[in-house]
């Protein structure tokens, strides 16, 4: 799982993305991840969090820059090479993105699709060790015995656990999580974040998490990256995330507890975009 000596596991260099609409989502982002840690990315809606994470496995095509995973540039890969690289990157989504009519087991096994031929996969003929790994992972994420349930019969928290199991089935070098808790209630959100944190240290796999909730980011991450208008404006440990820094990331706002200092009506638009 460790990168070749001297080579960081993930290195993003001068990454830019301009959408066909003209919107500049990323304007030169540099990030290096060299340890198995939980990296939270925070920032307002439209700051480029989702674009950044989707550029890493090229669900969004970057406009310029390099993304080096274990030293190889993902941006330069052809379709076949990209498929091979995607196998090494597990992704977890806000809306879980399970295939609802399929069973939990079918969803989890789909994490192995990159390693199984088309005909075998359409007949659900997966190698014995994959099936064993799937049962073990379901047990680990707390869904032992749910393998034959249909995905649409599960609760939000359970679905996200299936999503995590599916991503881990890939035995990834890197985990990408796009707002994994935004559709969950506060308690479930904390449980999911705790599970992710445990799995990151168990498997020594770094995770990049887009997250809206600053409190969750501070509580469960080793490092926080603040994005504003497509530029990294903060990159440090959660302890350094002060109210001044939050104002830099999100724009001016009173960061003390809500309900106090109510001198500004809530309907007035803040100066942030």
């Amino acid at each position, binding site marked *: 799982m460790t990168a070749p000596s001297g080579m960081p596991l993930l290195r993003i260099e001068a990454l830019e993305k301009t959408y066909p609409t003209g919107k500049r989502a990323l304007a030169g982002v540099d990030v290096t991840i060299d340890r198995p840690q939980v990296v939270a990315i925070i920032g307002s809606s439209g700051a480029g969090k989702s674009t950044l994470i989707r550029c890493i496995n090229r669900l969004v095509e970057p406009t310029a820059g390099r993304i080096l995973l274990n030293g190889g540039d993902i941006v330069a890969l052809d379709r076949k090479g990209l498929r091979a690289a995607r196998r090494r990157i597990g992704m977890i989504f806000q809306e879980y993105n399970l295939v609802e*009519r399929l069973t939990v087991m079918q969803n989890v096994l789909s994490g192995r699709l*990159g390693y199984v031929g*088309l005909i075998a996969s*359409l007949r659900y003929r997966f190698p014995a060790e994959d099936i064993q790994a799937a049962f073990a992972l379901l047990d680990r994420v707390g869904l032992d015995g749910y393998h034959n349930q249909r995905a649409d019969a599960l609760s939000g928290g359970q679905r996200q656990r299936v999503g995590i199991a599916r991503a881990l089935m890939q035995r990834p070098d890197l985990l990408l999580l796009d707002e994994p808790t935004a559709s969950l209630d506060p308690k479930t959100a904390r449980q999911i974040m705790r599970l992710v944190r445990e799995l990151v240290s168990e498997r020594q796999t770094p995770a990049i998490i887009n997250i809206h909730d600053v409190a969750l980011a501070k509580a469960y991450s080793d490092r926080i990256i603040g994005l504003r208008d497509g530029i990294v404006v903060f990159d440090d440990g959660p302890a350094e995330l002060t109210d001044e820094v939050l104002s830099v990331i999100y724009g001016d706002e009173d960061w003390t507890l809500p309900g106090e200092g109510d001198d500004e009506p809530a309907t007035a638009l803040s100066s942030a975009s």
Partner: protein
Amino acid sequence: MSATASPAYPTTWRPPSLFGSRRRRFIFWAAVVAYVIWSVSDLNIDGNRILAGLPRALDIFARMVPPDFSRWEMLLSGMLESIQIAIASTIVGALLAIPIGLAAAANLSPRPLYLLARGFIVVGRTFHEVIIAIFFVKLFGFGPVAGLLTLAVSSAIFLGKMLAEDIENMKEGPVEAIRATGASFGQVVGYAVVPQVMVKQLGVLIYRLDANLRHSTVIGIVGAGGIGQTLSASFSRYDFDFSSAILLTIAALVALGEWFSDWARRRLR
């Protein structure tokens, strides 16, 4: 915030009108009325001709009763041919619809292929089954082969369009998730697209089988085989009692088909 209502706020509210203003609504309806008056006066609707047709209609109806089922062997073989045409053309059409539907789905297919497939569907849907049948009868001669090909082509286009639209409306998230695992295009289709569209497409397929049953009775009239050909022959020989027997049988078959279609689609849910 005090609870007393401010007099400055309006107390009435109506949803915005479809037409924008009363004046535009009046112009629209005036145009509709003017058009109806003009078209009725322009079509030369001749009351006398309609009146003269009524006794003829009574005569034909009188000769249709009682229906003559004595040539039931001919009736049965025609009906069986129609049913065979309907089933075979639905199967062939469904197989052809898969590549058409995938190619015509904007979210899966590359732009040039998408435009080609959509163009094919648009052109294909321009022509009614009967026109396609006339063309195929000219190509392959009278008989069920022309009928089968007609309905296979029109089914493929119809089912392909329905499939493409269903694929375009499916949830993008699972497709993105399967793609992110490093799956190939075929695996993305098998794991993310098929599970999302399968149930609805089976329903559409059963509906099309039912529709093909109805169409297969009609296209025979232009020589494409089946019971329609028998019906057309009986009309031109003024065998109205046999015609009525055929019509009753068709009605029974279509009703049966519709009942089956309803039942099967209800069970799919």
